């Protein structure tokens, strides 16, 4: 019982920012309505796909990825020197691939409607837009346009691009749908995703018995051109007390 009580108390802290709309007043802005606190520094803990994440895998190593023949054709032609020459050394740092890179994240609120994720690997920034934000269009970017919403009790209609009607989602989680990405790589060795890819992510925070907080990112990439089926992964990050070790590095096409 003591252990369970401890878990429950810990959970309450995880959901520390949770507040609903007040009676009679306007609904709180997304920052105030956050059902989980994602802010702070987080670090990748790489216990899976080590050979594909911690080092650059060799050309032609595509294990685990449900590639199409079109995808293989592109990946077989991977030439990092050409990417560098074309100024596209950030192709493996786009939104659909960057969460798998060993890295640190720094999440802050840019404003009441925008959650900002700075990433030291490749010195990239992702913005998660809440509310009725609309893309301004223009050229696609590495990080694309991410529309986000909080999930708490399993929205019957489902989040934007999310999985509605299927039993809900974890309390205290963020759902984000990202489109308008510049074509990039799912893996450093040239496994591609196209400009039409759609990335859906679910961000959960869990607290372990030690008190450590972990950020769990469940992701799904849909890209019929290059993927036979949605590419589904989960990736973990551990909460850091501060920004120690934060190490912004430029994109690299080979490492």
């Amino acid at each position, binding site marked *: 019982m003591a252990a369970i009580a401890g878990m429950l108390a810990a959970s309450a802290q995880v959901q520390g920012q949770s507040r609903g709309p007040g009676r009679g007043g306007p609904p709180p802005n997304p920052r105030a309505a956050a059902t989980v606190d994602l802010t702070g520094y987080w670090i990748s803990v790489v216990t899976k796909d080590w050979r594909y994440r911690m080092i650059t895998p060799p050309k032609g190593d*595509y294990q685990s990825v449900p590639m199409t023949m079109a995808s293989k054709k592109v990946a077989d032609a991977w030439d990092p020197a050409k990417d560098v020459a074309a100024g596209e050394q950030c192709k493996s740092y786009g939104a659909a691939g960057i969460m798998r890179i060993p890295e640190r994240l720094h999440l802050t609120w840019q404003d009441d409607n925008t959650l900002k994720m700075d990433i030291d690997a490749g010195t990239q920034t992702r913005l998660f837009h809440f509310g009725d934000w609309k893309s301004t269009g223009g050229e696609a970017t590495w990080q694309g346009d991410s529309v986000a919403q909080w999930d708490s009790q399993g929205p019957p209609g489902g989040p934007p691009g999310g999985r509605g009607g299927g039993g809900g989602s974890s309390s205290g989680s963020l759902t984000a749908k990202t489109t308008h990405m510049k074509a990039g790589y799912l893996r450093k060795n040239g496994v591609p995703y196209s400009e039409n890819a759609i990335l859906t992510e679910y961000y959960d925070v869990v607290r372990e018995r030690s008190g450590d907080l972990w950020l769990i990112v469940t992701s799904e990439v849909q890209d019929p051109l290059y993927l036979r089926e949605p590419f589904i992964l989960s990736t973990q990050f551990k909460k850091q007390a501060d920004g120690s070790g934060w190490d912004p590095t430029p994109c690299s096409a080979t490492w």
Partner: protein
Amino acid sequence: MVIVMRFQFSKTLVALGLLTAVGIPAWAQIDLSGSWAARNHEDSEDKFAGPSPVDYTGLPINEAARARALSYSSSQLSEPERVCLFYPPYYLMMGPFGMKMWNETDPLTGTTIAWKIGGWEDRAPTTIWMDDRPHPSKNAPHERSGFTTGVWEGNILTAYTTHIKAGYIRRNGAPGSDEATVTAHYLRHGDLLTVTMLVEDPIYLTEPLYRTRTFQLEAAPIAAMGPPCIPGDEGIKKSVVPHYLPSKNPFVNELTEQLHIPMEAVMGGAETMYPDFRKKIKDKYTPIEKCVHDCGGPGAGPGGRGGNGP
């Protein structure tokens, strides 16, 4: 019967009081029942063919674990007493299989007494007790499935497992002890279910091993029970324990020779899990020119080595 019902009612009141006190709605639960199919889009080599005989990358093992792993010969699995060692509760995260989940309810109140995860291919079924029962004495028998209790934290089911048997944390002999415990979280998002497992092991790990895995709900049923792991005689002499003596493991250099992975990475340890380790090996690693075997891609076998498997 009246006494029993009163007891249960008072337990419920206590539980509700506790939940209210910490601000978590007791009804904030979701249905986890169904057939959750594997989506093996990562670590497919580990899940299917198995990892290289010596590959401890990304494992926070200590010296004792490393020494024991290096002494391991896969022929040990032919020994009756070791046939079932691959299947501790955390095999759910290591193996290629999906899982069937269902809840068992109290016939009088309808409340969930336990969540069950069916077994598969020798993996023992798991029972997650939801009725506040305590974990057994530390001297109680250890089972392959362990003893697990669970609690809802909002819409997240958190489970804690003790009393497991010794086994392996990777399918190449990296060991886990019978003093290991596992904390798991079940995170559902529509038709996706992500399971996290944190393995703590005071005997073999310097810090917890954290794994996650995502399953997808499918209409096609997954069996609730696989065949049990049955020890059998596979021809190893009773007086022989297949093993390698210190510094005699013939596979020590395999990953370095085949894939150029530096030895300090192959030998594992907590530092190999973190981004900063890349700085240490950056100048020691050059990828081989081209993948030559087990490369995955379109048309590769189950699990993708590009697909899903069971």
